[in-house]
C-alpha cells in the first residue's frame, strides 16, 4: 500500500513546500501505474493495428483470379485519382458532413441544454425520443424517412393535393435530403453526449450572471455556451469525421439522385461481383489520411477543455435554470423534437407494419390493415434465438468497450504517459468504413490459432473496434469535466491508480459511462453490415434476419420486426437509464 502523507513526512522525503512536494510525489505515484498505460495501449494496439495493416496492405495489392496475390501495385490509387468525379465527390462529402453535423448539433444541443439545465416540461419525452430512435434499426429509420419524404410520401402528396398537383415539392434524393436525414439520425447521440456534459456543469457562474441582471439569452451566450464550448467543438469534429465515412445514407438516399460522396465509391466497389476490396481499401486509406488531419485538430481542441472543468471539490451541485416566460416556448420545442425525430418515422413504420404490402398512406388503405405481420414475427422460434444472440453480443460489446474506455479515456484526458498514443489508437478506429473493417477481420479471424471465425466473440470484437471511439468520446469529455484536484487529493491520501479510478473517477463519471454504455448497446444491436459478413451459422443476429426479409421486399414484416425490436430495446434501455440516473443522483447528491 502506498505511503500516506504522514508517513512521507516522517520519513523525511517531503521537500520544501510541503503541499507542492506532496503533489509532485503523488503525481509520480500516479504515474507509476505505467503498467496500466502499457496494458491498455497494448490491448488497443492489438485491436486496431492488425486491421489497419490489413487495410493498407490490401490497398497496395491486386489479387488474381486464382486468389494468389498479384503483388504490390499502385494501380488502385492511380485508378482512384483518375476517377471521374473525385473532386465533386470530395466536395459533396465535405458539404454533407458539415451540414449534417450542424443539423445534429443544433437539434441535439438545444434539446440537451433545455432538458439538463432548465425547468422545461416534458423532459422524459426527450429521453424517450432519444432512446427509442436509437433503438430503431438504421435501415428502417432511413427507409421510413424515404417513405415520408419521397415522391409518393405524405409530404409531397399533401402538397400535390392542396397546393399544386403534378409538382413534387421536395426531392429527398438530394444533398438536402441526405443532410436532413443524417442530421436527424445522429441528433440522439449529440443529445446524450451534451446532456452528460451539461448535467455535470457548474451552475454557479450562470446563477451569478442572472443575479447580476443578465437575461436568459445573455447568460446562455456568454457563460453556458463558453463553458461547454470545447466539449461542443470536440463533439462537432467527432461527428464530422463520422459523417465523412458514413455510407448508408449516401447509398440509400444519394445514389438514386446521383449525389455521390467519397464513400459511394467504396460502397459501389464492394457491391461489384467479385467485390473489389483492394480498390475500396485504397479509398479508405485516403479517407484515413484526410481524417488524420482532422484528428490532430480534434486532439488540440480537446486539450483546451481542461480549462473548463467544472466538477471540483467545492460544493458541486448543478441547478436548473428558471426559464420563466420562455417555458412554454421551450416546451413546444421539446414536443416538436419528439414529433419530428420520433413520431413521424415511427408512425410510418406502424403504417407499414400493419399494411399487407408497402403502400402510400391513404385513407383507402385503412380497411386492409392487418396484424398478420406481427403474428408471423412473434411466432418464429428462429427470431427468438437471433434476438438472444443479439442481446448477448450487444451487452458484451458495450460492457467491455466501456470498461476499456474508462481507463483509456482517463489516461488520455489526464495526459498520462502514452495517453496520446492511446487517444490516437482509439480514434483511428473511427475511420474504418464498416465493410472494409469486416473484410479485414474476416481474414484475421481465420488466421488465429483458436476458434474465432464465425463465433459471437468475433462479432463482439468487431463491434468493440468499431464503437470504441464513441465510448472514448463519452469518457474523455466526462473526465475532463472532473477537476484533477479530486484525484490529487486521493493520491495525497495514498490511493493508487486503480483505487482512484474505482472510488473517485468512476462514480463521478457514471453519467458518461451509463450514456456511453447505452449508446453502444443500442447501436451494436442494430448494426447490420458487420454481422452480414462475419456471422456464422450459429452466431447470427436479428439484423441479418431483417436484411434477409428487407431484401425480399417484405416491407411489412420487417417493419413489424423493427417495431417489436425497438419496443424491446426501449424497455431494456429505459430500465438501464433509470438505474443509471439513480446511481448518478447518489454520486452527485449531498
Amino acid at each position, binding site marked *: 500500500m502506498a505511503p500516506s502523507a504522514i508517513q512521507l513526512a516522517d520519513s523525511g522525503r517531503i521537500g520544501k513546500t510541503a503541499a507542492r512536494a506532496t503533489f509532485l510525489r503523488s503525481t509520480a505515484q500516479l504515474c507509476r501505474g505505467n503498467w496500466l498505460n502499457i496494458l491498455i495501449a497494448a490491448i488497443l494496439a492489438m485491436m486496431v493495428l492488425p486491421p489497419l495493416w490489413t487495410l493498407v496492405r490490401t490497398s497496395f495489392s491486386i489479387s488474381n*483470379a*486464382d*486468389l494468389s496475390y498479384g503483388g504490390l501495385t499502385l494501380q488502385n490509387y492511380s485508378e482512384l485519382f483518375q476517377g471521374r468525379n473525385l473532386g465533386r465527390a470530395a466536395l459533396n462529402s465535405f458539404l454533407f458532413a458539415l451540414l449534417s453535423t450542424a443539423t445534429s448539433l443544433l437539434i441535439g444541443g438545444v434539446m440537451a441544454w433545455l432538458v439538463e439545465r432548465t425547468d422545461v416540461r416534458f423532459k422524459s419525452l426527450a429521453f424517450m425520443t432519444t432512446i427509442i430512435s436509437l433503438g430503431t434499426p438504421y435501415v428502417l429509420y432511413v427507409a421510413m424517412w424515404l*417513405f415520408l419524404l*419521397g*415522391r*409518393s410520401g405524405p409530404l409531397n402528396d399533401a402538397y400535390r393535393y392542396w397546393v399544386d398537383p403534378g409538382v413534387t415539392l421536395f426531392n429527398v434524393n438530394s444533398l438536402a435530403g441526405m443532410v436532413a436525414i443524417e442530421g436527424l439520425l445522429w441528433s440522439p447521440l449529440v443529445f446524450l453526449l451534451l446532456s452528460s456534459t451539461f448535467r455535470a456543469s457548474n451552475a454557479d457562474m450562470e446563477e451569478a450572471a442572472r443575479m447580476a441582471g443578465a437575461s436568459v439569452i445573455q447568460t446562455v451566450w456568454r457563460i453556458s455556451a463558453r463553458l461547454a464550448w470545447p466539449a461542443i467543438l470536440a463533439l462537432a469534429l467527432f461527428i464530422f469525421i463520422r459523417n465523412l465515412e458514413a455510407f448508408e445514407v449516401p*447509398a*440509400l438516399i444519394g*445514389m*438514386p439522385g*446521383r449525389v455521390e460522396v467519397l464513400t459511394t465509391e467504396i*460502397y459501389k466497389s*464492394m*457491391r*461489384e*461481383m*467479385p*467485390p473489389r*476490396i483492394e480498390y475500396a481499401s485504397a479509398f479508405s486509406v485516403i479517407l484515413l489520411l484526410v481524417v488524420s488531419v482532422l484528428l490532430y485538430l480534434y486532439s488540440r481542441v480537446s486539450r483546451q477543455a481542461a480549462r473548463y472543468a467544472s466538477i471540483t471539490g467545492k460544493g458541486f451541485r448543478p441547478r436548473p435554470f428558471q426559464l420563466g416566460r420562455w417555458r412554454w416556448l421551450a416546451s413546444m420545442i421539446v414536443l416538436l423534437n419528439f414529433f419530428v425525430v420520433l413520431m413521424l418515422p415511427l408512425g410510418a413504420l406502424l403504417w407499414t407494419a400493419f399494411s*399487407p*404490402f*408497402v*403502400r*402510400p398512406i391513404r385513407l383507402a388503405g385503412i380497411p*386492409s390493415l392487418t396484424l398478420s405481420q406481427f403474428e*408471423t414475427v412473434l411466432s*418464429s422460434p*428462429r427470431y427468438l434465438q437471433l434476438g438472444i444472440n443479439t442481446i448477448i453480443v450487444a451487452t458484451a460489446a458495450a460492457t467491455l468497450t466501456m470498461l476499456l474506455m474508462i481507463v483509456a479515456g482517463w489516461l488520455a484526458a489526464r495526459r498520462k504517459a502514452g495517453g496520446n498514443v492511446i487517444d490516437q489508437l482509439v480514434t483511428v478506429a473511427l475511420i474504418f468504413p464498416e465493410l472494409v473493417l469486416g*473484410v479485414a477481420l*474476416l*481474414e484475421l479471424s*481465420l*488466421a488465429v490459432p483458436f476458434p474465432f*471465425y*464465425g463465433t459471437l466473440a468475433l462479432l463482439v470484437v468487431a463491434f468493440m473496434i468499431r464503437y470504441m471511439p464513441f465510448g472514448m468520446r463519452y469518457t474523455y469529455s466526462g473526465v475532463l469535466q472532473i477537476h484533477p484536484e479530486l484525484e490529487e487529493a486521493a493520491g495525497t491520501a495514498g490511493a493508487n491508480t486503480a483505487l482512484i479510478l474505482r472510488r473517485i473517477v468512476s462514480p463521478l463519471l457514471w453519467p458518461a459511462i451509463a450514456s456511453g454504455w447505452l449508446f453502444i448497446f443500442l447501436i451494436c444491436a442494430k448494426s447490420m453490415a458487420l454481422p*452480414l*459478413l462475419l*456471422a*456464422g*451459422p*450459429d452466431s*447470427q443476429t436479428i439484423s*441479418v*434476419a431483417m*436484411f*434477409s*426479409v*428487407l*431484401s*425480399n*421486399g417484405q*416491407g411489412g414484416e420487417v417493419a413489424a420486426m423493427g417495431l417489436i425490436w425497438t419496443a424491446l430495446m426501449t424497455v431494456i434501455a429505459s430500465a438501464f437509464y433509470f438505474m443509471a440516473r439513480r446511481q448518478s443522483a447518489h454520486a452527485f447528491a449531498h
Partner: protein
Amino acid sequence: MSAGLTRRTFGGVLASATLAPKGAFAAADVEAARREGALLWYTTLVVDQVVRPLIQGFSQKYPGIKVSFVPGPAQEQTLRITSEARAGQPRGDVVDGAFSFFPLNAAGLIAPYSVESAAQYPTVYKDPAGLWTAHFLGAAVAAVNTDMVRAEEIPQTYDDLLHPRWRGRIAWPDTPTLYGGAGVVGNILTFMGRDKGMEFIEKLAKQQIINVPSNQRVVLDQCIAGQYPLVLSVFNHHAAFSASRGAPIKWLKLEPVLVSFSTISLIKNAPHPNAAKLFLEYNMSEEGQTIYGASGYVPVHSKAASQFPGLRPEDGNFKATIITPANFNANQKDWVDIYKRLFA
C-alpha cells in the same frame, strides 16, 4: 439474389415428361452422408420463404443430417468462401446464386458434381462438367403501377419505353449483374443486333433511368408504393405474388423477355461432401422443386408447379431471350461497360 427463367424446347418438355425415377442416389452415398451428419449452406435465398421449408423437407427425408445455413447477399458469400479458402479452412459445403459462381469458379473453388435428379433437365439448365445446376428460373420484366399509369399508356413493346412521358420516371436496380441495367443492355443487343441495339440503347439512356441501389424486390416495392410508375428488371414471380395480395402492379410482356436462372454448386474441399451432394439431389428432385414452387419461385423441374400460372415462357405465352450465366459471364464486361458509360 438471382433467379433465372429458361426457355424449354419442345424436346425438352417431352424429355422431362419421361423423367427417370427421382432419388436415384446410391444407398451407399446416403450412408456416407449420414455419417457426416451435417452440412453448411451459404445461401442468397430468402430464409423464411424457401430456405427453411427446403431444410425441413430434407431433414424429414434424411434425418440425422443437420443443415445449417448462413444467409446473405452474393458479395458477402463470395468474400466468405474466398477468405476461408485462402486460410485453408473451408467451412461451407454448398453455395447458390449464379453470380457467385463465376468469380468462385475462376478461383477454382467449385467442385464438379453432376446431379442425378437433374438428369432429365434440358442441357441448358446444367453445366456439362457438373459445376452448376439450375434450381429455379427467373424472368426479368418490366412492371407498372396500375394506379399511376392509365391502361392506354402501358408500354407494349420496347420502343414504347422511349416515349417522352417516361423520361425520368423509370427505375431499375443498380446492380452490375444480369438482373439490372446490364441485363437489359444485353437483351437488347442480343435480339436487335449490335448496331440497331446500340442505337436503341443510346435513346434509352436519354430517358434518365433512375438507378436504385437495391435489389429487384425493393425496386418492385417502390413501384407498388408509388415511388416510380414504371420499373425494369424486376422478377415476374415477385410481381405476381404482390398482385395476388392486392397490390396495384402488373408485369409486362415486352418481348423478348429476358430469362435466366439461378444455380447451386458444391464448394471445393467441402468438409461434408456427401451430405452436400445429397442435398443437391434433393434440391433438384421433384419433391424439392415442388417446395420451390410453393414458396413462390419458378421451379425448373417440369413436374413441379409454380404458385402462379403464366410465369414460364411456355405457359405464359411470351417470347424469351435466354441468357445463361455463362453467356452473361462472357459478355459481362462489354455490357457492364455500356451500362456504366451511358446510365450510371
